């Protein structure tokens, strides 16, 4: 049996159990988290294409599976990323019962993660676009659970991801078939325009971020966090694979300048709007946009260190998002109003949930002592030599986003009128504390993440030259 088949079957089994247990959040959470962690362990450690012995039986797990002339492959090039996605899923599912993101969160989340993993394993990798579209289709169940559905967000997600799929599929045909190279500038420009459209959707470049603004306000923030975290990570890795595969793309200085320009624009827009927003959830969308801008700036360095920083940012972003998502979900559990006034005083009656929301936000903003800081600092240092003006923009955006954190801290600690007593269970507090500790630990010891980043990039050999 091959590794992709094992991953697919186990994912399906976990999905089925998630459906059966959908009205028992704790059981569903435990089953899906355990399944995702087991799959992560398998992806990272299983002996692929080597004879081994399991319970006395000699077996050989193949790395590839053929379907309709295309192959799904788990190889050294993608197993670190596949493992990372399952670890993220396990982490998010494990705390999901506390956030109460809807009955279909666990099974639908498993489908999203499984489909994105298939997108990372499919060869030729251009077909990944279709898998990402299917992941977005499953994502509708995440952001539109009964009772807190984001209908508009779902519609826009579907439209945008369909457009991205079409653009990337056409580019995928153009690049190998039409002979697009530096020597064919007109065709190259056309291919780059289409690719830019596709990746603008995947990386939330405005105006393609509006589905997220709708979804994060109307739906469960925790479910949105899983969807956006997984899709983003896959989108970034997909982009790096494009750059790795096509030499003329990564050596196109104009393209790298454009990526830097878009990155700088996202950093500025993210910083300004994060500060101006009156809803914490929407504020986080703009902080996230700024973080993605920094990621693009790291890519625009076009050096192995730059690519490592980009992947490092992607890894810690998911952790910051998850911790924020858990904190804000617990803060918002008993209220429908998500504007500033509704959070007033919550820091006094639910301090741990408030701290988690703030620490997650601070990590996304790249503030010192949090998981988001080391990689952002690395990007700023690398940019200082090449483009000091852009490095200053990054510093300014960190400061603006830091001010946004202070603003939300003041809101959470501001005196509010008499409110019904709210509390959290010990288990909820334990998960919140664990999340906060993780963010702070990774801020102090970034080397805990770095080996994974190096391993994930090792499959993209051309980017390391």
């Amino acid at each position, binding site marked *: 049996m091959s590794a992709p088949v094992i991953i697919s079957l186990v994912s399906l089994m976990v999905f089925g159990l998630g459906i059966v247990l*959908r*009205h028992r959040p704790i059981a569903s959470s435990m089953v899906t988290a355990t399944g995702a962690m087991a799959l992560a362990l398998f992806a990272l450690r299983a002996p692929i294409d080597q004879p081994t012995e399991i319970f006395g039986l000699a077996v050989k797990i193949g790395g590839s599976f053929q*379907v*309709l*002339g*295309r192959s799904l492959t788990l190889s050294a090039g993608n197993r670190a990323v596949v493992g990372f996605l399952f670890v993220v899923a396990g982490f998010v599912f494990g705390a999901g019962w506390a956030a109460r993101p*809807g*009955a*279909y969160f666990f099974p639908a989340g498993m489908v999203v993660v499984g489909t994105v993993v298939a997108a990372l394993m499919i060869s030729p990798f251009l*077909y990944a676009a*279709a*898998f990402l*579209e*299917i992941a977005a*289709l*499953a994502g*509708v*169940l995440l952001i*539109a*659970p*009964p*009772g807190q*559905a984001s*209908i*508009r967000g*779902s*519609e826009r997600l*579907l*439209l945008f991801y*369909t*457009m991205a*799929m*079409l653009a990337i*599929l*056409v580019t995928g*045909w153009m690049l190998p*078939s039409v002979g697009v190279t530096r020597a064919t500038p007109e065709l190259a420009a056309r291919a780059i325009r289409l690719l830019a459209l596709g990746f603008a959707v995947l990386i939330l470049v405005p105006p393609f971020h509006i589905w997220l603004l709708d979804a994060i306000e109307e739906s469960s923030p925790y479910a949105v966090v899983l969807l956006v975290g997984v899709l983003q990570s896959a989108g970034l890795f997909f982009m790096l694979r494009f750059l790795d595969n096509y030499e003329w793309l990564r050596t196109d200085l104009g393209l790298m300048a454009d990526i830097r320009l878009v990155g700088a624009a996202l950093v500025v827009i993210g910083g300004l709007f994060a500060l101006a927003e009156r809803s914490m959830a929407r504020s986080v969308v703009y902080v996230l946009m700024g973080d993605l801008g920094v990621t693009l700036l790291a890519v625009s360095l076009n050096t192995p260190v730059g690519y490592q920083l980009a992947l490092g940012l992607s890894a810690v972003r998911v952790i910051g998002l998850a911790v924020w998502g858990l904190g804000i979900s617990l803060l918002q559990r008993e209220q429908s109003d998500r504007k500033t006034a509704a959070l007033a005083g919550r820091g006094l009656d639910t301090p741990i949930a408030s701290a988690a929301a703030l620490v997650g936000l601070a990590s996304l903003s790249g503030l010192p002592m949090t998981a988001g800081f080391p990689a952002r600092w690395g990007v700023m240092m690398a940019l200082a030599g090449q483009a000091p003006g852009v490095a200053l923009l990054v510093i300014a955006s960190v400061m603006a986003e830091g001010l946004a954190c202070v603003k939300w801290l003041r809101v959470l600690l501001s005196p509010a009128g008499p409110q019904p007593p709210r509390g959290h269970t010990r288990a909820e507090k334990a998960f919140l504390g664990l999340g906060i500790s993780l963010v702070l630990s990774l801020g102090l010891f970034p080397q805990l993440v770095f080996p994974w980043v190096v391993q994930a990039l090792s499959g993209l050999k051309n980017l390391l030259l």
Partner: protein
Amino acid sequence: MSAVLTAYAPWAVAGAAVAGVMLVVLNDRRWLTVALVAQYLAAGWLVADVLGVGVAGAQILGGFLVAIIVWLTRRNLEVAHQAVPRGNDLMALRSFRWVVVLLVLFAGWGLGVRDWMGLPGLTSSGALGATFLMLLGLLQASLYRAPMRVVIGIISLLSGFGIAYAAVESSLAVIALLIIVHLGLALAGSYLTILQAAPAEGGVEG
């Protein structure tokens, strides 16, 4: 068989355009289902000479399933399916929708006859049919607020793309993936429509 289909391809283009227009302008459940089936038949006709009648037939079969999902959803939730156009009241006027559709048809004709996609192997009929469906699909997805109408717009966009893409990529894997996406979109539209209707009908069990 394939030669006959190619010879009469302009009829399929006309069929695609009429079906696309009906999908944008009309709101009756039966006519919408008929138009959706007609759109899939026209798209299947236009790709049959490249992909073969069998594969085109599989695409049409997938289209029939999509139409059944749309029809069942609309039949069960007729009240919820009074499509709500986006924007101001002007869009709610059928006459205005006709004007917009005619403008899009003219734009589609202008683009389609110029081979704007530049895909080798794409016939003039294919280019025209694909352009009509993509533009009308985009129009529908942006004009309406009801989830099923938005999804039908995306499906039209995808059908138009499928005609053009078949000229350059005939891999069964891609075709299978695209059929899955069509069905997934229909199911997503149905799910969102049921959710939207839920408050009026007493809620949906989680």
